[in-house]
């Protein structure tokens, strides 16, 4: 850069950054043998308090009662946690079942069935939900809702209307016109796996660090202020981690992908701030919230103050714009137990339910919190992203009592698609950045 003394050397733009991941860090929690009933109680209490305040405006005339206090034929509002009974959901007790024929031999990817039904539970009891209004295909276990309806003669609760918690309040989007600043979201690098293309990844890194192209392209790259890697950065060959003792040559094979990743991240961190989140295939803990990948895995990159290892889910603020994202586990789990037209619809539902991962701890691994539920969304993000999806999709939704708007982004797996997502901080417009390595034969 010292050669061009006549021209102004390009400087990368800066942004302010604040991490909000403290709620997802488990360091302060201790495990004393508690079970998951505690987190369900914390979730129910937290959301019921919220829903009670909304119910008084939603149905001011209708009495609110507990499940056990239901009287037949009397219209009332009940608040509780939904439980979806699913016929095809794998159950540990199937092993002991005498009727082998009831268990399908081939495990379906989606466990929905026409006979699934919903049940509402609170501390006092549970009641089966009936009526056409509430569709089991949309809801999953773990959501807290308020229902208006009445108990039928058969003992079911016939639902007339459903009230979800809705989008949480949002901080104001900074509106003053500014320059274009971009944040790049990428996921599923799968370094070290046979599917990943090292050249494609190197092209990506060279582009965002400004080592590619002419001055025009470099000036575009200089507007990129931040990079977030949303999980599955490492692809350790599955055959090596099956619980057997490894020969010494295999031990070094396990470390190769991580070393390679460190070299790549070093190149990025030398140029601009980088956040790396753990994903389902990364060497981090299994249950949500996944803790940050350890610094010792990145001896080269961790020396930079631009390198940040973050939790999954990851919540942060850049230039007073709030971001919230996960590496995909929450939406992938919803896909197994419910139906929607696309991944963005699942994401929208999690915002409306005000909970990032309602299926935790039922079907998604989760830490057994006792007095709080960190997946409850306190403040509505401006950008909500989910990593490791099959394709790039994006949409803006405008919903909620205050007209909150959120840019929803489904970030595809880079190793399969070669696509990263770029978001403009000025107006939250986003586009795909794709890299290909086709050689003309």
């Amino acid at each position, binding site marked *: 850069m010292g050669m061009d003394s006549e021209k102004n050397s390009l400087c990368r733009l800066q942004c302010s950054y604040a991490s909000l991941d403290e709620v997802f860090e488990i360091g302060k929690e201790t495990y*004393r043998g508690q*079970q998951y*009933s*505690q987190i369900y*109680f*914390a979730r129910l*209490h937290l959301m019921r308090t919220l829903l009670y305040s909304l119910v008084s405006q939603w149905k001011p005339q209708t009495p609110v009662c507990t499940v056990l206090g239901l009287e037949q034929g009397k219209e009332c509002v009940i608040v509780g946690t939904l439980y979806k009974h699913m016929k095809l959901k794998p159950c540990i007790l199937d092993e002991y079942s005498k009727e082998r024929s009831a268990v399908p031999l081939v495990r379906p990817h989606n466990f929905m069935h026409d006979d699934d039904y919903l049940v509402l539970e609170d*501390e006092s009891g549970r009641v089966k939900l009936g009526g056409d209004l509430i569709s089991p295909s949309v809801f999953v276990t773990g959501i807290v809702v308020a229902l208006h309806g009445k108990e039928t003669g058969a003992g079911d609760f016939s639902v007339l209307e459903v009230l979800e918690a809705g989008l949480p309040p949002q901080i104001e989007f900074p509106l003053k016109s500014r320059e274009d600043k971009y944040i790049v979201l990428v996921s599923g690098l799968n370094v070290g796996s046979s599917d990943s293309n090292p050249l494609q990844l190197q092209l990506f890194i060279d582009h965002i660090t400004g080592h590619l192209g002419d001055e025009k392209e470099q000036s575009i790259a200089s507007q990129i202020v931040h990079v977030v890697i949303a999980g599955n950065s490492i692809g350790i060959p599955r055959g090596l981690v099956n619980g057997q003792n490894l020969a010494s040559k295999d031990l070094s094979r396990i470390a190769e992908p991580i070393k390679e990743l460190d070299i790549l991240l070093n190149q990025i961190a030398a140029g601009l701030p980088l956040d790396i989140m753990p994903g389902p295939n990364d060497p981090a803990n299994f249950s949500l919230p996944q803790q940050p990948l350890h610094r010792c895995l990145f001896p080269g990159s961790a020396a930079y103050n631009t390198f940040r290892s973050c939790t999954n889910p990851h919540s942060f603020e850049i230039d007073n714009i709030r971001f919230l994202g996960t590496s995909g586990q929450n939406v992938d789990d919803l896909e197994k137990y419910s139906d929607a037209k696309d991944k963005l619809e699942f994401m929208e539902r999690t915002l409306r339910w005000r909970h990032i991962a309602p299926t935790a701890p039922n079907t998604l691994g989760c830490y057994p919190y006792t*007095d709080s539920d960190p997946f409850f969304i306190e403040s509505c993000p401006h950008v909500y992203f989910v990593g490791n999806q099959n394709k790039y999709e994006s949409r803006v939704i405008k919903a909620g009592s205050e007209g909150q708007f959120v840019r929803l982004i489904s970030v595809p797996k880079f190793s399969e698609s070669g696509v990263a997502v770029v978001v403009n901080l000025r107006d939250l417009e986003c586009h795909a950045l794709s890299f290909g390595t086709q050689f003309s034969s």
Partner: protein
Amino acid sequence: MASVSGNMKGFYRQKKSNTKSSKKASAKSGAAQPTALVSHGDDYSACEAMLRQFDMNMAYGPCAGMTRTARWERAQKLGLNPPQEIEKLLKSGKVQNESLWDGRI
């Protein structure tokens, strides 16, 4: 098990052959009480009885797997206004901090 010979009435005993009553039998309603319903012989005071009521109160959530102090603090944190007497009892240190199910389930 006794071999079934002839008389079925003899096989199914109509009353307990063991006439020794347990220490607490005088406090309970009859000698033929099934042992499952009799208290396990632990002598619990009025303080412990009050703490057990606190354990069983559903408003403060499940009690299994948490110490009583932690559960009281959680109730306080969630704004449920747990009674102050319970906190005083727990702080005095003369009572058991584990819930009544500890070690039993």
